[in-house]
């Protein structure tokens, strides 16, 4: 049946989006053999997502533009593929787990594609059973999709694609919203797909989990493929070269703790005593937590999703009320009602937090609520966060990183003492990760305490000073980030 030795073949492919300014593709020549796993990497906006869209047919059918060159998928020219038939050949998984399912129950979600393509009910049942047993996802069946964790949702997305029986899988930053544990689960499923001889194309920033799966790594820049390595070669790429290209680590155990922060004495900052939170009496989320977070250190809160980490942050920020216990800043108690605004949360998706119609307006809105006026102050803050050239722009027209900075600017303008960041580096390449690192150093220098919730090992090791591990609603460990604790931390992330 297989006529061509290549699952995907592109010759001199060029593409330009007709509607948006996003970078297209230039002179792409790529041949992917059957059963091969290709990793596409490069800075945000380098064209790796566009490349995946060509393979699954979203370009040019969904994202319109000017496409030139020869493309064949499964030995058949792209122009002779009908889009619905292509979906049985190429399975797609996207970045955002919350926006790729259609049904509210998981079983029907796996069946959804089959239903659309008019496959008979008996066959659909068989396919569901095959998908569930092949991918070992028995625990996902018959559940409410909204009750699934992010990792489980991504697993469901893979299962839904799998049930259509494709032999090529295209994944666009599938781990961007996942914690370390879910990323490991993702790796296991990808290993299974590879073991079955599926061809896999994956666009990613986070690379370490692909070390045992990938065959080739392609580096893209401004719409072109500029570098290519085999797995073996890629393992030998030096740290300097990686940093220069902005590529994430391939092997986490090679990421060394480098920064040497002054070992100055810890100053009292935020602390909690006997804090308990429960949404229902029988189901406590946090049980009797006590800890201190020094004012002059960057504290990282780590732990599996759904184990109390985000509830902890929400409680610190005054979004969720505690059932008992207290939160204090510099030894003075901060009651629930006063916490909001004093402890400022920068959300994982900062676009939620921007309400004004210009960058300047955004800062002024916060200055007002912080009961301080004056545009000199606003300019000062915007300069600190290098947003001063965008004062007139609409917040929604900013890039992801700029939105994040603007949210932080709002926090500073609101005169917050503590800035809490939820996953500030999810989906960022190495260069942008370092940028967040520098930024946090700067705002800390202004006397703000910083707490980050993170799953990003490289960022953690680069930027943070101490770690609080939360599991099952209690603090399981709390330690400094130094060479002695390196193994402990690494074990936590590699889930050994």
């Amino acid at each position, binding site marked *: 049946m297989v006529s061509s030795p290549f699952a995907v073949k592109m010759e001199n492919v060029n593409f330009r989006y007709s509607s948006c300014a996003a970078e297209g593709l230039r002179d792409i020549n790529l041949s992917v053999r059957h059963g091969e796993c290709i990793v596409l990497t490069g800075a945000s906006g380098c064209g790796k997502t566009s490349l995946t869209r060509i393979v699954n047919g979203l370009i040019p059918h969904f994202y319109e533009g000017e496409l030139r060159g020869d493309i064949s998928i499964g030995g058949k020219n792209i122009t002779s593929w009908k889009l619905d038939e292509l979906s049985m050949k190429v399975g797609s998984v*996207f970045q955002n787990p*919350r*926006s790729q399912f259609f*049904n509210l129950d998981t079983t029907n979600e796996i069946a959804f594609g089959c239903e659309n393509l008019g496959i008979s009910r008996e066959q659909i049942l068989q396919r569901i059973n095959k998908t569930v047993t092949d991918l070992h996802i028995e625990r996902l*069946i018959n559940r409410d999709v909204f009750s699934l964790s992010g990792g489980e949702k991504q697993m469901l997305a893979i299962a839904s694609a799998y049930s259509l029986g494709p032999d090529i899988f295209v994944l666009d930053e599938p781990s961007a919203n996942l914690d370390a544990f879910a990323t490991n689960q993702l790796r296991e499923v990808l290993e299974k797909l590879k073991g079955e001889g599926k061809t896999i194309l994956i666009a990613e920033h986070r690379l370490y989990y692909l070390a045992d799966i990938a065959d080739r790594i392609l580096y893209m820049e401004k719409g072109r493929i500029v570098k290519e390595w085999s797995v073996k070669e890629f393992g030998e790429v030096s740290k300097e070269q990686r940093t220069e290209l902005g590529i994430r680590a391939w092997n986490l155990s090679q990421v060394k703790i480098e920064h040497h922060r002054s070992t100055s004495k810890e100053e009292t900052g935020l602390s909690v005593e006997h804090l308990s939170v429960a949404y229902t009496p029988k189901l406590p989320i946090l049980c009797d937590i006590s800890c201190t977070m020094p004012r002059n250190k960057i504290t990282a809160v780590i732990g599996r999703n759904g184990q109390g980490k985000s509830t902890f942050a929400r409680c610190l920020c005054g979004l969720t009320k505690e059932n008992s216990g207290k939160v204090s800043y510099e030894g003075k108690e901060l009651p629930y009602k006063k916490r909001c605004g004093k402890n400022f949360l920068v959300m994982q998706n900062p*676009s939620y*937090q921007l*309400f004004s119609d210009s960058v300047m307006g955004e800062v002024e809105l*916060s200055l007002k609520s912080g009961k301080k006026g004056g545009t000199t102050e606003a300019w000062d803050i915007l300069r600190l966060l290098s947003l001063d050239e965008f004062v007139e722009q609409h917040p929604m027209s900013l890039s992801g990183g700029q939105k994040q900075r603007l949210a932080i600017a709002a926090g500073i303008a609101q005169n917050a003492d503590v800035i809490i960041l939820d996953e500030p580096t999810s989906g960022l390449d190495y260069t942008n990760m370092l940028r967040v690192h520098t930024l946090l150093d700067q705002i800390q220098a202004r006397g703000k305490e910083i707490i980050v919730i993170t799953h990003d090992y490289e960022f953690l090791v680069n930027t943070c000073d101490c770690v609080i591990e939360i599991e099952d609603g209690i603090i399981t460990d709390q330690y400094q980030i130094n060479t002695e604790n390196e193994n402990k931390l690494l074990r936590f992330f590699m889930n050994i």
Partner: protein
Amino acid sequence: MKVDTRCVPSVAKSTDALLVGDRRTLEPRTKLLILLIINITSFVQSNVLCETICIAMIIFAMLYHRSYRLAIKNLLLFIAMALLILLTLRVENTVVGMLSVVLIMARKIFPTFMFAALLMSTTQVGEMTASLQTMHTPRQITIPIVVIMRFFPTIKEESRGVLDAAKVRGIRFTFWNFLSAPGKMMEYIMVPLMMQLSVVAEELSAAAVTRGIDSDKQRTSLYQTRFGIVDIIFILLFSANLIFAFMGGGIW
């Protein structure tokens, strides 16, 4: 690859349970038809008895679906509303009079809302499409229904995000703020909410395309739905009440 045979029966069993259903529910088309009947009844009837029968039957339908909490909540809400109307009618004051008009309007559409809530909470998206497809409904109708039912929980989730974000930014959605700056407050909720929803919508449609949503083949269904005797009983009951409403509900 080795297949773990132990889990095959368990999966088969669980899918069977889902499809045959130990859930007690009316056929989705029955629910849609009853919703329509209730809608007409509400606007035709001009009589307390007819209205009471309608509410009672909806409560009965809720109990049949084992939606006990929904039944109690709605019953209490309706009683509260009825009492409030009685109370406002006794006070002679223009403002109170206006309030009572609003309440009477609300009471008119209340049965429809009650049944719609039942329909939403007891119907799987897949059941609905399966049911419509047995009548060869084109996918131009079934797909939008999937999307609408999928979008309600999303709107809820996204609004929660927006409200939290506003709180962090020191924007309070208090009653006083709504009175003094209603435009600003609406803007603070609607603009970010619409932005987020449009992002979700775009990503969702891209994902849909890769799952064969615009295929021109006849759509099939995992679920199977069938009319039963209970469906007929419920339809007859609600139709009888509709006739009663048309007759002016005039027993006395």
